[in-house]
């Protein structure tokens, strides 16, 4: 009882066959084989599964796949252009925000969704966004540092454009 689903992933239109009970993360990880998006809990608490859909960060673990029909999705694999990292990736990799790295793709995508739409996001907005993500390694301070550097880099980039 599979059904066809068409959406855009990282700029490429894809049509895939999905089982009705599949969540979006199952399609991303198991059908499209994009394993950068992680699953860390059973009920959308940890934030590791965040991807950007139609410009907004969403939890892919509790969104029925069918609801992504026609959507424009970006996963962590869609950020770097060849060898060139997205500024958010550069900032997060250099601030000490990465230890085990399991929460990292979700945090990178959260910031991508937030800062691409609103490069001038307030510290409160950043904090509200990052509060959706659990990290057991860093004590969060280096994530905050990385997010602030990322914001500056994104702002610079937008100015140049």
């Amino acid at each position, binding site marked *: 009882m599979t059904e066809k689903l068409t959406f855009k992933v990282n700029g490429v239109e894809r049509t895939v066959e999905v089982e009705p009970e599949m969540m979006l993360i199952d399609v991303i990880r198991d059908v499209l084989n994009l394993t950068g998006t992680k699953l860390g809990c059973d009920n959308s608490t940890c934030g590791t599964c965040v991807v950007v859909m139609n410009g907004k960060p969403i939890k892919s673990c509790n969104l029925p796949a069918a609801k992504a029909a026609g959507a424009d999705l970006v996963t962590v694999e869609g950020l770097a252009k060849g060898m060139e990292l997205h500024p958010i990736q550069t900032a997060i990799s250099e601030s000490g925000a990465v230890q085990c790295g399991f929460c990292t793709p979700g945090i990178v995508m959260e910031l991508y969704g937030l800062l691409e739409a609103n490069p001038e996001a307030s510290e409160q907005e950043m904090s509200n966004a990052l509060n959706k993500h659990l990290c057991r390694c860093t*004590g969060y301070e280096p994530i905050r540092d990385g997010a602030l550097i990322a914001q500056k880099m994104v702002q610079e980039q937008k100015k140049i454009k």
Partner: protein
Amino acid sequence: MKYKYVGQSYIRPDAISKVTGKAIYLDDIRLPDMLHAAILRPQYAHALILNVDTDEAEKCVGVVKVVTGAGCKFRYGDNIKDLQPMAVTKVRYIGDPVAAVIADTPAHARAALSKIKVDYEPLPVYIDARDAMQPGAALIHEDMSDYWRLPTLKETPGTNIANTYHLHKGRGEEGFDEADVVIEQEFNFPLGSCAAIETHGSIIWFKEDRTIEAWSTSICPFIIREDLAHSYGMPIADVRVHIPDLGGCFGYKSDITTEQTIAWVASFVPGRPVKWVATREEDFTSTLLAHGIRTRMKIGAKKDGTLVALKSTIYHTAGAYADTAVNLTMASTHNSTGPYEFKHCDLTGYTVYTNTPAVGAYRGYGHQESQIATERMMDLLARKLGMDSLELRKKNFLSEGKVNAVGEIMWKHHGNLLECANRVEKMVFSKAKPREDDQYVYGRSLVTVMKSPKGAPFSTKGCYMKMNLDGSVSINMGGAEVGQGMRTVIRQVAAEALKIAPERIRVYTEIDTQYSPYEWQTIGSMFTTQGGRAIVRAADKLIAGLKKTAAQVLKTDEDYLEYEGDYIVLRNDPSIRVATKDLARGYITEDGITIGDLAQSVSDARLPRYSNPDKNGQGSIGVSYTMGAQAVELRIEKKTGKILVDHFYSVFDVGQVINPLQIRGSVLGGVTMAIGAALYEEVVFDKDGKITNPQLFKYHIPTYKEAVEQTIEFVETPDPIGPFGARGIGEHSVIGAAPAILNAVYDAIGADFYEIPLTPEKVKKALEARKESK
């Protein structure tokens, strides 16, 4: 001492693969023809299995096989062989594997679980060591005495006591007759979870060529290899274990955990790899839990504050299988002295079977569990003596010339705890404490802590080093990168030892027992110390080999040569030299004749003279110590009883900082975890042994908005064992938070608490009592 590469911040080599989503974790591995397993957990925490009916489940969509424990003849375990891969005659805790479904997809495997019918006969359930060790309690392991165990371990037949550890120093309990003041109190550090963001998982593949290939979320591939080989009667060389990137460990991915269960399941479908990844619920119910330690502590002191005698009794709720808890009990027991000298010690640790998940390592390995008692007792004793609690601590520090509980003499190089304490004291107490206001009441406290590793005397860390044709160096070791930043440390230590830039050193990215050098397991905050020593040794050997070839090339003696990184030069005339890279595969002379060996080396490093304890618990069983001071400033919201940590301070003597960015990150994270344990975290059981909060939205771990401002500094008294004077720091930062917070709450509202988590409800009650007494 100033080093060129050690002491600088470098970005970790795995940062890029992690921000791009390209790092491969266990669940990201896809193998040809792979099957998926789901495991049935029991409805009872202690029950006999009367019958398992798998017929309906076998018929479900996608199901390949349903497996039970029937016919399993072997037990396993490194300390006590009390584990079985799947329950055979009874279940002993709520996460015990009863049966497994193997199917084409994880969803099909899970869907069929509910079709397995099991008949049970329930037995009494014990969720606390104190209850389980009562005379007449139902036995959780009836045949305990038949199990193989290490010769140093001793069970109490006819009880649930899996081991009793005892340490006797000086005159033991008799020593209390020298005390002017004696205080006694009981403390509790309840069961918790490491709760790494990546859950446990394994892939096991029994191959037709009679080898086993395995992947696991583990930091002990060599133990898995030995255990599987032993259980299935194969040569160790025929089992190959891979460790991919790990999404955090914090302890519970050490020792063998779920691998034997998945191997048992996979053994029924030879030829096909079987993957299992724990749900978050299973990660709580069916892997290792943490802590579960009650400490009853009695301290005797002279009027002037000199500590004379310590009696600690540790009641360890070890869980249904004690193999992973027994060493933890010991570590908690012999380190219950904290960083203080007691002339007389009588320390006992009971490892007790209970109907809860097995307890294993958690960052800090038993130290915070008993030092919550020690550090609270120091404050209680100071109050009784009418003394300043920091003065009391300073008077009794395990400083140079003192003898610790296990009989080791302390030397200057064990660290300058006084300097750590003085620095934190200045940071916190040189300013006035805020006065109570309408909303808040304020408290602060300083504690001092110590940690040694609890490993095995044979535990070593291997290093393979090879120089490539361009002079770059490849390093292969058996240590597991769990996020601690070991790969960066390897690079920096090797760069310093080899006098070449870190960028020219490439560190291995996965462990594969087929290629990796042996390491027992990456535990005890010992990778920098032992692994770093192994790197220095490998570098020395590599350089010696290079010099041997260079001596032939330059027609001189090896001891006239100096290694300078890029060149080997004649000491008395450095213009005579050979480029190091030209020696990498031996040296090719003008006519093509090649001389000398490949530039490669092998080494390993244990802790020096690390031993088992003798019958009195004495021996060289710490060897390496890191000490430090920590303090908290907090406020209590009067309306709710909520504790808000305003600032946390840590100063540790780490010998030598290798990477300032990483070491700060390590302490930041450790303190955050420990504040979580002190304020929020407890795995809660109902009376039937079911866990009521096995999800991250119920088991609250600290969030972004709860992160605490921290001041972190380091004292550097060089260590003679570690590389370039460095010593371990991975776990130490978790020890002080709980006692510091409880002491600061007393400072704020005059209420004594003896257990954690200290929830707002408990504090609110104390606030109300305070109001009444005012």
